[in-house]
């Protein structure tokens, strides 16, 4: 985590701040979801408490904290209490591995009578070399929180909700994994930073052994993997158990699925897990297909510090490379956030637009339609890469 105490502290703080950001975004998203659904359905939504109903979040938090403490009499208390905590871990760990902006270079400086060497801080909780595999591995643990909740409640609806949820999650994991193979084929790396940097360039590909470059377009994955992007995004909906794939908590048939018996903060933790998965899903979509934290012709890791340099000078901060680098990283972080917000809004909009699938239709879609299409996408990508690189003339 660091070689000296300064680096260690900064890394620790960074990690906690990113996790807290994830937790704090949940009430905001709930508010957006309620206002958004009201907007879509031509209603008003929560608008009484505070400006625009924003204080509703606080009221909700108070309600969550004071709600009656309850464990079902038949249930298994230990598993019942562990489940919500377990449900938060996968999303938090996966989100920590995704780069949120370019690394910040900190110059050497003197402080507290000591010399602190130059540092490079990654704009993410931690960097793992095999980023994609790590994220897949950690998020495959998400099934346990749900299964524990279903079993711990010892309630038929909860158990069926849990089984449906885990069966659906694992079914769509296949299509998701195969769609990601296309991305790896394209960029030849497991590392998120490599993938993002490869997209901060003009659109380029090999055609008959020659390099073709289209300067007016960024080198985003979406131009090479449109089918893969659609499959991945659809699979993400199933992974997050949201409508139109919210069979695990289908109100009409299963009461509330695996969190039937949950209330108060334990229930809220499942929400943190679900919205955390939404964040991870939109961050992955942006990183794989939409250039991550870069916006090629305008904002790249090279140009962002240059753009921010005058602003740093204007505020009278010494135009050392530290301040400029930090401001540039923040600018790119805003780019990522804007892109993520677009995807989060799509998540919310789809929820209030499409009807729910039937369970057999859901499994049918996952296994018999999306999996073959994802396979086709992989094969087509591999063959196209090979054919287009081949120099047919010579």
């Amino acid at each position, binding site marked *: 985590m660091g070689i000296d105490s300064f680096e260690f502290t900064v890394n620790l703080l960074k990690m906690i701040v990113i996790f807290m950001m994830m937790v704090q975004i949940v009430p905001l998203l709930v508010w957006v979801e309620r206002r958004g659904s009201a907007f879509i359905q031509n209603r008003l939504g929560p608008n009484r408490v505070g400006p625009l109903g924003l204080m509703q979040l606080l009221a909700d938090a108070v309600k969550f904290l004071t709600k009656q403490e309850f464990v079902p009499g038949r249930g298994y208390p230990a598993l019942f209490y562990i489940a919500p905590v377990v449900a938060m871990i996968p999303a938090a760990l996966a989100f*920590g591995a995704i780069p949120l902006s370019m690394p910040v270079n900190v110059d050497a400086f003197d402080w507290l009578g000591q010399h602190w060497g130059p540092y490079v801080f990654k704009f993410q909780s931690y960097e793992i070399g095999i980023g994609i595999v790590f994220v897949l591995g950690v998020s495959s643990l998400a099934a346990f929180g749900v299964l524990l909740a279903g079993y711990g*409640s010892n309630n038929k609806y909860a158990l069926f909700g849990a089984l449906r949820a885990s069966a659906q999650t694992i079914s769509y994991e296949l299509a998701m994994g195969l769609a990601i193979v296309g991305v790896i084929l394209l960029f030849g790396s497991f590392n998120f930073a490599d993938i993002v940097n490869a997209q901060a360039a003009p659109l380029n590909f090999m055609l008959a052994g020659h390099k073709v470059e289209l300067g007016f377009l960024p080198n985003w994955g979406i131009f090479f993997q449109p089918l893969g992007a659609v499959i991945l995004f659809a699979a993400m909906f199933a992974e997050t158990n949201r409508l139109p794939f919210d069979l695990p908590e289908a109100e009409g048939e299963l009461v509330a699925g695996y969190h039937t018996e949950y209330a108060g903060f334990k229930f809220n933790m499942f929400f943190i897990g679900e919205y955390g998965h939404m964040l991870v899903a939109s961050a992955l979509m942006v990183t794989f297909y939409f250039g991550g934290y870069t916006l090629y012709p305008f904002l790249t890791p090279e140009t962002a510090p240059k753009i921010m340099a005058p602003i740093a000078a204007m505020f009278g901060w010494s135009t050392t490379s530290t301040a400029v680098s930090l401001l540039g990283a923040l600018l790119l972080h805003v780019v990522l956030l804007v892109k993520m917000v677009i995807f989060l809004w799509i998540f919310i909009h789809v929820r209030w637009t499409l009807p729910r699938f039937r369970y057999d239709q859901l499994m049918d879609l996952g296994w018999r339609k999306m999996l073959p299409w994802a396979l086709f996408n992989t094969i087509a990508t591999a063959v196209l890469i090979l054919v287009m690189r081949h120099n047919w003339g010579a």
Partner: protein
Amino acid sequence: MSQLLPVIVLAIFVIIFGVTLLFLASLISEKAPDNEVQDESYECGLPSDTSGPTKIPIKFYLTAILFILFDIEIIFMYPWALTYNDFLNGGAGVYILASMGVFLAVFVFGLFWEIKSKALEWE
């Protein structure tokens, strides 16, 4: 280890965060009265009937087992996708595509066999 330490620290932090919140909520919140009706499993107000063994369709297990097998086949494609460009640069493009092609043919055959055998059909 240096790469793994922050992951472990974050996991521990999340657990502490969750446990602290549960503990705080249990301090503040109203205690549940001793209420037999409330302690029953929630089954929409009908008299509870959670006695007999729950029958669970075998389909769930079949799906999970098939998932494991296909998941491994997909995992095998990850190193292939990673090294695909290296093989292409080494001039062995047709070789690597053909060797994965054989594997994929087996995969596709398996998938279509499962689809034809109606093992993946629900209801």
